[in-house]
């Protein structure tokens, strides 16, 4: 197709590498993990689970950040399609050591006895390498956050954490810094390549503009929009017909704020959203801290999570409670819809087949607003919520509640508000008695399911307790 290329180019082992999909050797639905393992010299990358939950396949992607530097991000190569490498630098465990000496993270791993069976180790080295490049003397929280996505069954992690703390003390300086200017030049050479557009059993396109994306969608109506593809890559292990990758569209990556709204492009990664909300919307950033792992958050996008319409989405409850709206674009124009309205039913939204979700608008609220969120899962990190919640109270005159929104995930087929409890709370003072009464109403408001993560009874208890917890922690810490 004109304007697209059936070839991709990326940097690996210090060189520009070209893959031509027309020669039939590779499908665009091939994961980078399986691509690497098909090469003779990159079998250090390991498959531990194939579903993004263990990190053994972690690699680092280098991308141009501005005109003269590179950003480094750890990602799961089992959830990355090969053409997604277009224009990027792919760094694997084989690249980490310098010509004559180990990388500081490897040296620290060695000194701290941080490997036992060794199978998870290449992935750990890669996550730690990304940490090294992005943090100087990281806090324990930052270091463990960078490694939460890497399961190890042998060491008990302590030596790994010790190695991370020991290694990351040199402002990210290493042999990659020494050759960064050269790599920047290589990446610039491939920066303006035609975007990949590969036709075959599985067709893959990465349009550069919203208009082009809409054109493609008109042409291939059953195409699936992807961006980070973290949710879909393993579900579609078979042969998806058409994939339209929106990650090349810069319009989807904008963030802006004014006095009334915060605007998030749908293509912002969860990690980017987390960083943007840290100061303005702590209820959102708090829940995003326990969203998947850093590898997942580096790829998964805000738009993708909303459109998945999962009943246990970590994003939706806080978007419900902050009365966010989604912005939808089609050739006919734009429309805006409350997130709550946008979610139609279990894993279904009200998006039209010819539309793209382009952004999310969150109204800025005044000081009389209390926002709170929480996620309870069986394991603290890298786990799916048993129940999650986004609450917001707008206080009116005489300390009475003028509006309450209690949105929950994990209690119904979709993210859902506890309308009865909300109504009860309106025009009441938020004191212990009210909260106790409200929590009892809440306890009976849902008929949650029993599944592998929890039974119905515990979910009810959690729903009730989260309201109590919000009251205690936010409203009355002395309770």
């Amino acid at each position, binding site marked *: 197709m004109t304007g697209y290329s059936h070839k991709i180019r990326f940097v690996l082992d210090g060189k520009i590498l070209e893959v031509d999909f027309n020669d039939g050797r590779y499908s665009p639905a091939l994961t980078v993990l399986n691509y690497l393992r098909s090469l003779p010299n990159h079998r250090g990358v390991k498959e531990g689970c194939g579903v993004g*939950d263990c990190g053994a396949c972690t690699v680092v992607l280098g991308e141009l950040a501005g005109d003269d530097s590179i950003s480094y991000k750890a990602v799961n190569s089992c959830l990355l399609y090969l053409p997604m490498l277009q224009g990027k630098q792919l760094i694997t465990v084989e690249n980490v050591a310098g010509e004559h000496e180990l990388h500081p993270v490897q040296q620290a791993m060695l000194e701290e006895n941080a490997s036992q069976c060794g199978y998870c180790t290449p992935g750990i080295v890669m996550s730690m390498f990304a940490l090294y490049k992005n943090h100087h003397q990281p806090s324990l929280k930052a270091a463990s956050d960078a490694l939460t996505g890497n399961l190890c069954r042998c060491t008990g992690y302590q030596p790994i954490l010790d190695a991370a703390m020991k290694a990351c003390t040199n402002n990210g300086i290493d042999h990659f810094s020494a050759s960064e200017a050269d790599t920047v030049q290589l990446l610039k050479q491939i920066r303006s390549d035609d975007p990949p557009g590969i036709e075959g059993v599985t067709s893959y396109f990465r349009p550069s503009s919203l208009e082009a994306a809409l054109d493609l969608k008109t042409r291939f109506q059953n195409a699936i929009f992807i961006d980070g593809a973290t949710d879909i890559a393993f579900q579609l292990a078979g042969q998806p017909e058409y994939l339209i990758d929106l990650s090349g569209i810069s319009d989807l990556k904008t963030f802006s704020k004014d006095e009334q709204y915060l605007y998030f492009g749908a293509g912002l990664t969860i990690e980017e959203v987390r960083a943007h909300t840290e100061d303005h919307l702590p209820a959102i950033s708090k829940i995003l801290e326990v969203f998947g792992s850093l590898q997942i958050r580096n790829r998964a996008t805000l738009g993708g999570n909303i459109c998945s319409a999962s009943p246990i989405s970590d994003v939706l409850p806080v978007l419900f409670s902050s009365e966010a709206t989604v912005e939808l674009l089609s050739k006919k124009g734009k429309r805006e819809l409350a997130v709550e309205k946008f979610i139609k039913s279990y894993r279904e939204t009200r998006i039209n087949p010819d539309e793209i979700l382009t952004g999310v608008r969150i109204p800025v609220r005044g000081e009389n607003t209390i926002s709170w969120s929480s996620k309870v899962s069986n394991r603290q*990190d890298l786990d799916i919520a048993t129940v999650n919640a986004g609450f917001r109270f707008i206080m009116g005159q005489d300390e009475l509640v003028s509006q309450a929104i209690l949105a929950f995930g994990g209690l119904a087929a979709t993210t859902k508000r506890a309308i009865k409890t909300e109504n009860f709370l309106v025009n009441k003072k938020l004191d212990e008695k009210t909260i106790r009464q409200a929590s009892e109403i809440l306890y009976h408001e849902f008929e949650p399911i029993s599944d592998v993560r929890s039974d119905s009874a515990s979910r009810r208890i959690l729903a009730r307790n989260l309201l109590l917890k919000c009251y205690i922690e936010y409203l009355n810490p002395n309770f």
Partner: protein
Amino acid sequence: MQQRHSIQYKSDTDPVHESALRHITGEAVYINDIPVNDQMLHGFILTSTIACGKIISMDVEKAKMLDGVHAILSYKDIPGINQMGPVADDELCLAEKDVDFIGKAILLIAAETTEIALKASRLIDIEYERSEPVLVLEDAIRKGLLIIPPIEISTGDADKALSTSKHTLKGELRTGAQEHWYLETQTCLAIPGEDDEMGIFSSTQHPSETQAIISRILKIPKNNISVEVRRIGGAFGGKETQANHFAAWAALLAHHTKKPVKIHMNRIDDQKITGKRHRSINNYEVGFSDDGTLTALKVAINLDAGSSTDLSRAILQRAVFHIDNCYFIPNLKVNGQAWKTNHPSNTAFRGFGAPQAMAVIEQIIDKVARYLSKDPLEVRFQNFYRLSTNNITHYGQIIENNRLIVLYEQLVKSSAYVERRKSINEFNKAGLHYKKGLALTPVKFGVSFTASFLNQAGALVNIYTDGTVLVSHGGIEMGQGLHTKIMQVAASELGIGREYIKVDPTNTSKVPNTSATAASSGSDLNGMAVKNAVEKLKKRLAEVFVNEYNEKKSGELSVIEDIRFSGNFVSDNEHPERKISFEKLVKKSYKKRVSLSATGFYKTPGIYYDRTSSKGNPFHYYAFGMAVSEVLLDTLTGQFSILRTDILHDAGNSINKNIDKGQLSGGFIQGVGWCTTEEIKWDENGHLLNHSPDTYKIPTIRDIPEDFRISFLQNVPNPNTIKKSKAIGEPPFMLSFSVWLAIKDAISAVGDHRFEPEFSLPATKELILKSIEDIRKKMTA
């Protein structure tokens, strides 16, 4: 997490893992990384989709026609015996008429790619006639489905003592299954050679058994089958018997296609079709006096064996041996039973039955303490085995070199248990929705295979004329650092640097008839076997040395007993000027036509067990350890964090403290997983619900103690073991009970320790929430 103390001990002299450099550079080769020629086929296992029933018909014709499919095999294609059980012949390699669990192998497919194999599998129709499966352990018990005869051990008169005890308590404890979650899934590469030869590269803990099972199935003598293992990516018991299955299937496909065949399981299928730690239901009645002294105990241990025997007999045996943990109970009757259910056969897993039993007695002690309003610490101390009295187990073994009291005294002090108990009580009284819990739990673990004949090992040591040494032994390197310890043993015995020593991949052609690397015995057994081989070689070299000097020199003769191997030299202790480099002596020996290759052998002395009287000395020695953990529990969400863990462990004279420290922290955290987040559920048809890391949650780096302090007991050489060391693989697993019971302590604090919390294992958030809910109801009642 704010302040964090790092593990205190770090040895600068002990070497790091011999493969560490290869691990961190990605150069370490696992089976799936071995380059094979382009003839290689991928094996796929088609398994039963029902838990119990008959196969009515199979249609494989469409699948056979598929391009790229080279073989589709059923049990009819097995040239030898269709059995792959390690102990009992009750496990078919491929199903014949019946299937007895979801995941039972029925057909094998060999195809050019895994995608083709998968496609072929979807073209195969199998029609079943379903029958009612037994999926719940209680149902198996009710129906009397014993899979092996019960094992009972009795000492004193428990019934009588119970009737005369001042206090008695009854109860039940359930413990859950656990998935091994080795990072490297089950993998085998089978390469057919000339005639009947079969080369096997398997991720197995037990190559000799892998060889034996392939030999039976293919009807090929063992001397045609070589099984090689360089390293495996984690095992924890999950590859002790069940790696055999994948090897047998790959070998069968390779045998038929005459091409190399690799089976590399994807995670989800691996989790679905392999066995787990036995879940258990345990019922007990305990008698005790006012001061908490246990006077009598009756326990029934019920294990879910799954669909076949596998290692359940030995696992049950170890469970009944470990019901006492560290406590002297004069009147004790333990009855162990293992039951058949329609699940994949449960199998070895770090601790091997001991964790289930030890959890029972620890729960009992905890309960007795709450009943008597005492700190469980006191009741534990009160009942510990003592040095010269109260020191005989229920199976009659005297506990020698008992370290319990010294561990207790040192750890209570170093962990500031008493002071922290006080401040925790104050914290808990403040009425917050957070509660803290604290617990000390001890471990006594018997070291040896309980089937005495397995306690043997072999080695082969070759010295080459350049002075380098190649060591082969029967043990498997699965991350635990066995090869590193073996290198250290060989180097120090030969008096040469470790750089001259290489440990060869384990191979049945080098060292035959080996035991599994299991029961924490890897370095105990193989270290001694290597030492034995090295001693033979040293004797030969010393003879050459002595002859050399005695022939040439005048004066006093050198004698073999005085010859020392040290610092890459060989010398005469009495005549230090008589000194020659190791390499030169090796070259001389070669020219003198002296054999530079020797085998070594070891069998653990003094162990025996009489099954009829249930008495004996099944263990060579005991490993001891103790842990104190403190948790912070959010009583509204059930979420908790481990604030601090102190471990004091007896590793004898550790051969390698770095490696032993890794086993301690790793075993402990794996235990924490079993005790907390690792829950396994099945649906009503027998489908495993937690079949991927999406739903099965092993600990992450955020789940470890915020303050983790590990120390070893000092100056405690273990007599009669290699380098006076102790086994370290399994014992630390059970130290995690300190976390489990600290959680219980925190729950108990909700009701000011007045009510016994509902509790079982794992303590999932769901269980914690319900237990708290229950206490709150009792409080308002």
